[in-house]
């Protein structure tokens, strides 16, 4: 039987945390077959999405810029394909995965290693609220008032990997919670996907080790969908998406670019060619005055054609550097 526990949320409105026991009708099907399946679960939000096709995205708390960008890209592709994103509400990659999924109107599941009234880490309280309010859900095997305790976090990871069809590891060090999640996924007979990364990188030892152990290296969301059998041909789907994307860029480019003056066009094409450039490089290579370059860069930014990234660099809006 289901028991409804009513709890106050920020002393403002009521929230409902549902208690599901093993054997209940609405016990997540994905968890039926895992080892050590939780005796009971506490769930807040939209329970139905626990039975949607879903993918787990996990990664380092100390993510790099590369990790952030690639997580956004992959989550975007999966979300637009109608996949639910499962993650652990930790800071770093987890938060980016949840947030990006919400940004693209997707549904996402947060698995907590503590009670649902004691959201950890605290800085993700708003993200938690956003997840619930946008048709996602939060799930924990601990009583709502259980405090966060480090020793519970590794065990939580079996639910993180258990709830989904496969697990994607973006960045991880050799010994980390992320590696534990991947280990559980292997044990549960699920595919593990890793994003390639330079072997000297601080966050690559975990992913490289996983690849050695049989994780599949992927670079796009389509490849994941293909590997788990949700689409039957990779290049068709990938090509189509890529074509659409390029067409869209071409259209915007032609339309917007034709309205701009010659020098602004020149700068745009220069950024397009060099991918990531500084204002100084533009001045030097195109022999322009910094005064004018700043004007043209603002025009391009306001048109939504380029982005100003940290470190005095500019990139095309649609061109993540991955």
């Amino acid at each position: 039987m289901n028991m409804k526990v009513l709890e106050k949320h920020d002393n403002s409105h009521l929230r409902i945390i549902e208690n599901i026991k093993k054997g209940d009708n609405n016990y997540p099907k994905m968890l039926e077959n895992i080892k050590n399946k939780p005796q009971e679960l506490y769930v807040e939000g939209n329970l139905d999405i626990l039975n949607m096709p879903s993918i787990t995205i996990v990664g380092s708390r100390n993510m790099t810029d590369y990790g952030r960008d690639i997580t956004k890209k992959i989550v975007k592709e999966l979300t637009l394909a109608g996949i639910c994103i499962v993650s652990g509400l930790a800071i770093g990659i987890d938060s980016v995965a949840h947030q990006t999924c919400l940004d693209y109107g997707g549904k996402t599941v947060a698995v907590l290693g503590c009670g649902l009234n004691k959201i950890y880490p605290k800085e993700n309280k708003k993200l938690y609220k956003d997840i619930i309010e946008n048709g996602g859900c939060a799930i924990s095997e601990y009583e709502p008032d259980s405090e966060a305790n480090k020793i519970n976090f590794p065990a939580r990871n079996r639910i993180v990997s258990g709830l989904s069809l496969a697990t994607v590891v973006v960045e991880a060090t050799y010994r980390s919670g992320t590696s534990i999640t991947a280990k559980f996924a292997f044990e549960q007979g699920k595919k593990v996907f890793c994003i390639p990364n330079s072997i000297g990188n601080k966050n690559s030892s975990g992913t490289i080790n996983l690849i050695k152990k049989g994780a599949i290296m992927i670079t796009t969301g389509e490849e994941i969908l293909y590997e788990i059998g949700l689409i039957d041909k990779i290049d068709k789907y990938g090509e189509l998406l890529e074509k659409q994307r390029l067409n869209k860029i071409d259209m915007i480019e032609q339309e917007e670019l034709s309205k701009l003056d010659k020098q602004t066009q020149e700068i745009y094409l220069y950024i397009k060619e060099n991918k990531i450039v500084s204002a100084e490089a533009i001045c030097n290579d195109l022999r322009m005055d910094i005064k004018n370059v700043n004007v043209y860069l603002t025009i391009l930014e306001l048109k939504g054609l380029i982005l100003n990234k940290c470190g005095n660099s500019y990139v095309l809006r649609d061109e993540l550097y991955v």
Partner: protein
Amino acid sequence: MEEKYLNHGEISLAHYGVLFLDELPEFNRNTLEVLRGPLEDGEITIGRATQVLTYPCKFMLVASMNPCPCGFYGSDKECRCSDESIKRYLNKISGPLLDRIDIQVEVSSVKYENLDSDSIEESSEQIQKRVNMARNIQKKRYEGLGIFSNSELTPSLIEKFCTLDSTGRAILGNAFNKLGLSARAYGRILKVSRTIADLDGSEKILDRHLLEAVQYRSLDKKYVV
């Protein structure tokens, strides 16, 4: 023991000059917050048990900082900092203080081969000439108002001297929506574009002056998740 006389501090010593703070986030946060009032009012009041004194301190604040504790964030070299430590580092400078800094520019590190590059550079004499010209324009414009330069403009004076035409207003509106500039940056951008226009010898603030000024709010529009 209480000091017998209240001496003036660094900011009063910098009266009508430049106060340069290197590695801004390394200063004590309270020390930095104290700057807010003087930056706005041009004077500082020090109160102790024995006396209360007000010193003038119309100074120009110039500061430098790294993008993160290790200094490599956003550069070619690998940054060793975590997201949290970068946030913590940048948070040492409060929003209100950042808002009082008119011009924020990011510069990338210089590569060895570019140390003696052949790029055209303006000489200091030329720059001095330009700056003096702009200063004279401002002096003339603000005659009788008790101020000398654009940086001293009050909100009501901004309305009077930094008028925009309809396209200029559209650009600014667009910039606020698209680049996520804070409302407090509004007056700053107008003042800076007024100065750019003066340097250009232009009586009106043209679109290009405004567009250039927007580019100097790099910390405002910086996007860090």
